[in-house]
């Protein structure tokens, strides 16, 4: 029996509501952290007008949410639909409630209680000085990789979807205007908000109608790579933007921009929830379960456990979140009681993006006759798609990996008949083929999300041809927004990590420290390295790809390992510094933290044994080296963690380490 969309939507909403009030508020906020509104936060105590600036909790929610939500909550679940919709949904819900949201909230509060320092520096207090610097170097390297990836993804997005470029051009000046209205005029916040939303809607409508294209600087083009001049030009412009945005005071651009973001993103999530509820009895046409190990990584059977942690990151849990929470967010928190909404709530909202705006819509649009209406309205019906599948030649032999060219319509619904076939040796033939119905899985991961979202909203409002298309375009714009905001936040975070990495120099050579820790210098170094990793093209497996792809396959593992280590650090902070000794509360944090550590470490070892050998040589070397370093750091930090835990156990309460205890 097909499950109705409304049933899944209701369960998801009930789980999140219960988690927020019962676990988040009653246990984490009141029993464990004991958040205190009368305690000065770093934004107040260390106010500097640039990075340490208190923000309204809804503005800060917008900032935190927009920064932690890159492409991860969308792309990961879209890939994981290969397991069917049941397992990914379970992982998102379980990961959100017991790991991701706890991880984000505790990282935020640990940082707040340590003067706004990063979770890496917090580790010094509970695991020793060595842990801090190892952790900082590891995170800084990861941030540079994030920067490279986001430079590249943004540049490609602007080349391929010029409407996203128009929106980006309009968005930043509008954000500056909103900041002006919010902070420098007597216009009420409500009036400012209404005005801002109207301007934003106008800007989005304009962007959809009027794309912004550039020819690029031809001198920058890479020979033999189509569109490389545009790519390189956008990349350099984005590097300049990221540097500028990361050194400007947060009240000037970051806070108002994220205030705007919040409305855009809430609209996006809200429309998904509303549509899921309105879709009502519409059945989910996708399978709840396909296989425990479908081919995902490098075409290899990919077991749900432990690989799921490497596939779904931000939608469930992500180490990057702890860097944001303890980086930009903790320096803007005005009141400790705001932290639950910002830290725990934003993670649940991101989970809602994965569950309600990605998994549910794709499951709904998986295989249904009405999907043809949306495909037609989007101009996809007759668009060709190349499938890799076995074909039988006229002489009766079977070629396992032939390329078959059919239309998206034919691939979605299945097709028997003549089609162009390209054999591995390059020969092109016209053969009769039998293409099984692939449903929505025929589309790439981003298209699955965009079309699924459009289909769900269009179905809910009974108009796939117009509402469905507009919703699909809106989804693409929301994704672009997630990506661009992460870029300059990551630059600022890399600067913070850089500054903390050299804090030992402050007492030894104040002059040198002033130069190295200078915000303009710190951001420039991060931007230069990130852009340099994304700028050149290299040949990987016969394809021209931006250079960071040499090591990118290792990112999922390193990021999730960071989540495990950050959660363990937070758990130790709860035990050693907050002195929460009740077993039930400690186990509630420690057990998920260790479960995550075991899952990610096993996942990395599985990835190294099964996936790495099948990657092109250059990636074997690049990504392989990074994974091996990650595994080494993993065990080193775990050893320091165990030492810290023993020390905390041995210490009498009066001797427990300081730094934010009650």
């Amino acid at each position, binding site marked *: 029996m097909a499950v109705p969309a409304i049933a899944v939507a209701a369960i998801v909403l009930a789980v999140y509501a219960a988690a927020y009030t019962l676990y988040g508020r009653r246990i984490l906020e009141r029993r464990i952290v004991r958040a205190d509104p009368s305690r000065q936060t770093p934004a107040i105590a260390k106010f500097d007008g640039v990075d340490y600036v208190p923000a309204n909790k809804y503005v800060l929610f917008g900032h935190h949410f927009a920064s932690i939500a890159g492409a991860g909550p969308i792309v990961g679940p879209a890939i994981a639909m290969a397991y069917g919709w049941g397992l990914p949904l379970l992982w998102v819900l379980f990961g959100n409630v017991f790991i991701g949201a706890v991880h984000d909230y505790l990282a935020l509060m640990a940082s707040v209680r340590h003067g706004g320092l990063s979770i890496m520096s917090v580790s010094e207090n509970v695991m020793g000085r060595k842990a801090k610097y190892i952790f900082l170097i590891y995170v800084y390297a990861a941030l540079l990789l994030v920067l490279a990836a986001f430079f590249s993804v943004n540049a490609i997005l602007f080349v391929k979807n010029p409407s996203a470029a128009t929106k980006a051009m309009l968005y930043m000046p509008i954000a*500056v205007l909103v900041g002006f209205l919010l902070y420098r005029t007597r216009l009420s916040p409500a009036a400012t908000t209404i005005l801002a939303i109207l301007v934003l809607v106008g800007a989005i409508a304009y962007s959809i109608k009027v794309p912004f294209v550039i020819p690029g600087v031809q001198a920058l083009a890479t020979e033999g790579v189509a569109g490389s001049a545009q790519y390189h030009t956008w990349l350099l412009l984005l590097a300049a933007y990221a540097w500028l945005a990361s050194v400007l005071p947060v009240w000037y651009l970051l806070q108002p921009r994220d205030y705007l973001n919040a409305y855009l993103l809430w609209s996006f999530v809200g429309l998904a929830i509303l549509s899921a509820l309105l879709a009502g009895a519409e059945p989910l046409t996708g399978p709840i379960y396909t296989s425990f190990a479908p081919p995902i990584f490098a075409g290899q059977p990919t077991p749900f456990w432990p690989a799921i942690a490497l596939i779904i990151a931000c939608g469930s849990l992500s180490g990057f979140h702890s860097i944001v929470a303890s980086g930009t967010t903790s320096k803007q928190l005005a009141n400790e009681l705001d932290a639950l909404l910002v830290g725990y709530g934003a993670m649940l909202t991101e989970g809602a993006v994965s569950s309600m705006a990605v998994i549910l819509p794709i499951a709904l649009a998986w295989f249904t006759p009405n999907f043809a209406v949306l495909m037609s309205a989007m101009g996809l019906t007759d668009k060709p798609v190349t499938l890799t599948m076995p074909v039988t030649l006229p002489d009766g032999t079977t070629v396992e990996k032939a390329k078959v060219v059919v239309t998206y319509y034919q691939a979605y619904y299945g097709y028997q008949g003549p089609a162009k076939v390209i054999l591995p040796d390059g020969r092109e033939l016209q053969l009769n083929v039998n293409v099984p119905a692939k449903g929505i899985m025929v589309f790439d991961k981003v298209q699955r999300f965009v079309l699924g979202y459009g289909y769900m909203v269009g179905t809910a409002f009974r108009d796939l041809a117009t509402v469905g298309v507009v919703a699909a375009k809106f989804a693409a714009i929301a994704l672009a927004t997630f990506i661009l905001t992460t870029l300059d936040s990551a630059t600022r975070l890399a600067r913070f990590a850089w500054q903390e990495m050299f804090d030992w120099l402050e007492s030894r050579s104040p002059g040198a420290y002033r130069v190295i820790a200078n915000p303009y210098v710190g951001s420039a170094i991060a931007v230069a390295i990130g852009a340099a990793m994304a700028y050149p093209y290299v040949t990987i497996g016969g394809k021209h790809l931006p250079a960071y792809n040499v090591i990118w396959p290792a990112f999922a593992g390193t990021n999730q390992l960071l989540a495990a280590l950050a959660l363990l650090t937070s758990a130790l902070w709860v035990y050693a510094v907050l002195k929460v000794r009740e077993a039930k509360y400690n186990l509630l944090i420690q057990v998920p933290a260790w479960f995550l550590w075991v899952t990610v470490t096993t996942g990395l070892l599985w990835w190294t044994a099964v996936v790495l050998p099948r990657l092109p040589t250059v990636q074997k070397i690049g990504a392989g080296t990074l994974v091996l370093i990650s595994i080494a750091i993993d065990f080193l930090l775990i050893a320091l963690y165990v030492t810290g835990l023993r020390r905390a156990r041995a210490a009498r309460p009066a001797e427990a380490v300081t730094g934010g205890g009650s």
Partner: protein
Amino acid sequence: MALRAVGAVLTVVGLLLFAYAFAVGAQKGVIGSEKQWTGDAVAVLAGWFLLMIGPALYFGKTPSSIVQAVGEAREETG
């Protein structure tokens, strides 16, 4: 004072460039061209940066509303 003047000039120039480019874009249905650099494309890019830098130079200091809020919060939290 000089910085404020520079900021004001950059902001006004940025606004003019933006107004020009987006008006042209509305007429043509596209801003810029894939074949060659056009005035509207250059105007958008220049205006983008000018409108981020200009107001920052013009206003300079942290808004008094934020400074006041921090002062009050410090008093409340001791």
